[in-house]
């Protein structure tokens, strides 16, 4: 298999398999999670539960008072790499082209130099967050294989993508193919690991907020 055949495989068969497993996993887990249900709380609600849910969805995106000072790396690094990932994934022209070809939806892209800068910041933030996880005894103690693994499968697509654009390490064709392959690994892994929070984060926040609101905890 030469470089172009490798690229054609990851763009063709590989993508087909990865997107298939991704859709399978996402639908499976969403249906399973939301069909679990909860026992009805028969007590009279102390607050309007739904409003409390919505409030929590937004409130938990903002650090509680004093926490940024206590744990700056977690918050700032976390913000940097999540926002960076969103920008790189959704506002880079070739990525939009891919989404358009799959769904028909498209939107304006950002200049590739800006995307390049964001990619570097994202990579740096992810490395810092990883170093923090290794250095802080508590974080290290709480980390399992899944944490290290999901960090890796998230980091690799950004790294390989940036290397491909910058023409580093391998010829562009190989690097692009490796980039697409790493994204495919991420797609397959996402529904079955903690990375599934990409789908469940707002739902679970709403639920927590609603339950707490019902019980009378100030929102």
């Amino acid at each position, binding site marked *: 298999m030469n470089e172009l055949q490798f690229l054609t495989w990851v763009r063709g068969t590989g993508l087909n398999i990865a997107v298939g497993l991704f859709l399978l996993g996402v639908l*499976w887990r969403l249906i399973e999670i939301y069909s679990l249900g909860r026992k009805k709380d028969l007590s009279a609600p102390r607050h309007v539960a739904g409003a409390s849910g919505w409030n929590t969805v937004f409130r938990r995106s903002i650090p509680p008072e004093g926490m940024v000072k206590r744990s700056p790396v977690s918050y700032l690094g976390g913000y940097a790499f999540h926002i960076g990932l969103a920008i790189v994934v959704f506002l880079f022209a070739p*990525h939009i082209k891919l989404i358009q070809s799959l769904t028909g939806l498209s939107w304006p892209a950002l200049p590739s130099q800006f995307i390049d800068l964001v990619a570097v910041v994202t990579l740096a933030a992810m490395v810092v967050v990883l170093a923090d996880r290794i250095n802080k005894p508590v974080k290290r103690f709480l980390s399992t294989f899944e944490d290290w693994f999901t960090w890796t499968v998230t980091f690799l697509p950004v790294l390989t993508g940036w290397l491909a654009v910058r023409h580093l390490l391998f010829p562009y064709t190989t690097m692009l193919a490796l980039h697409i392959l790493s994204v495919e690994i991420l797609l397959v892994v996402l529904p079955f690991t903690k990375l599934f929070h990409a789908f469940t984060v707002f739902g679970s926040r709403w639920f927590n907020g609603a339950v707490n609101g019902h019980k009378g905890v100030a929102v």
Partner: protein
Amino acid sequence: MQGPLIDTLALHGVSRRTFLKYCSTLASLMALPPAAGVAMAEAMAAAPAAAKRPSVIWLPFQECTGCTESITRSHSPSIEGMIFDMVSLDYQETLMAAAGHQAEEVLRKTVEANKGQFLLIIDGSVATGLDGAYSCIAGRSNLALLKEIAPHAAAIVAMGSCAAYGGLPKAKPNPTGAVSVSDIVKDKPIVNIPGCPPIPVVMTGVLAHFLTFGSLPDLDKLGRPKAFYGETIHDRCYRRPFYDQGKFAKTFDDEGARNGWCLFELGCKGPVTYNACATVKWNGGTSWPVESGHGCLGCSEPNFWDAGGFYKALSMPANPLRMAAGAAVAGAAAGVAVSFANRAKKKDAKAAHETTTLADLEKSEER
């Protein structure tokens, strides 16, 4: 054309100055040191043509003659063409006057007279299906001809993508069992000059290198001269700034296309194609595909016919996602099945639940 090359050139109205300029251009194109241009000029000019002109045999296999057409387009009156004329092209079916038995005789005699010294140029892929019967010349299959002549060549030039990689005949489903020259010949130096067709100056550049240094130029891992195939079309494309700015032509006749914006979204394979089109251009430097408004097809890369469609952007799926709908249905079914299992579990737990009343607790206290 029996005297030194420089005299022959003078006869054709080419001044020494023009000739030197050509040699240094060729040398710089091939990223050779400046002195190489002089060496090239000396080697080629001083060579008494009749004595040292290397013999060249050009064999056409499963091909469309596009490669020959490409070479002849640059032929006359360009200086490249003249240099090409200065080698002794002893066998070339399209260009030679002889035909039939006469042509076969020329081929046999040329091989006999130049054993181990001639340069063998091949365009077209080698059919291997049905013992090579898909493509024959004078009753012999290309496969047999190649196996017979290749051992006597000094070096082989696989001209065009078909000879270099199998090309169009090798495209799926490859009915003739087409393979490249390097799939058959393993013990000779082979230089691949892929392209559909290849750029004429690349051909003459390789020939000049062979004449001057008696060896083939530096090759990449696909056997292509690094001097011409060292960089991608995309990296050298004059439309590259538009790619970096995110300005893309969306159709072949929209405002972006008229403004000369990047053709990536229209399927340009420039980013993964290693060739010199963007710098050398075609037809004496007149233009090249991207300049004339069409994306690069990637013709100098192996298997470019089967690389997912000429008009699909590189970032788009090469094939339709056939599994997606099925996988979504399977996923939903799995989710529903698991949720039923979970509900059954809950129901069982509920059924197994024993209610403890105050009376029960009091009873137990009494015990």
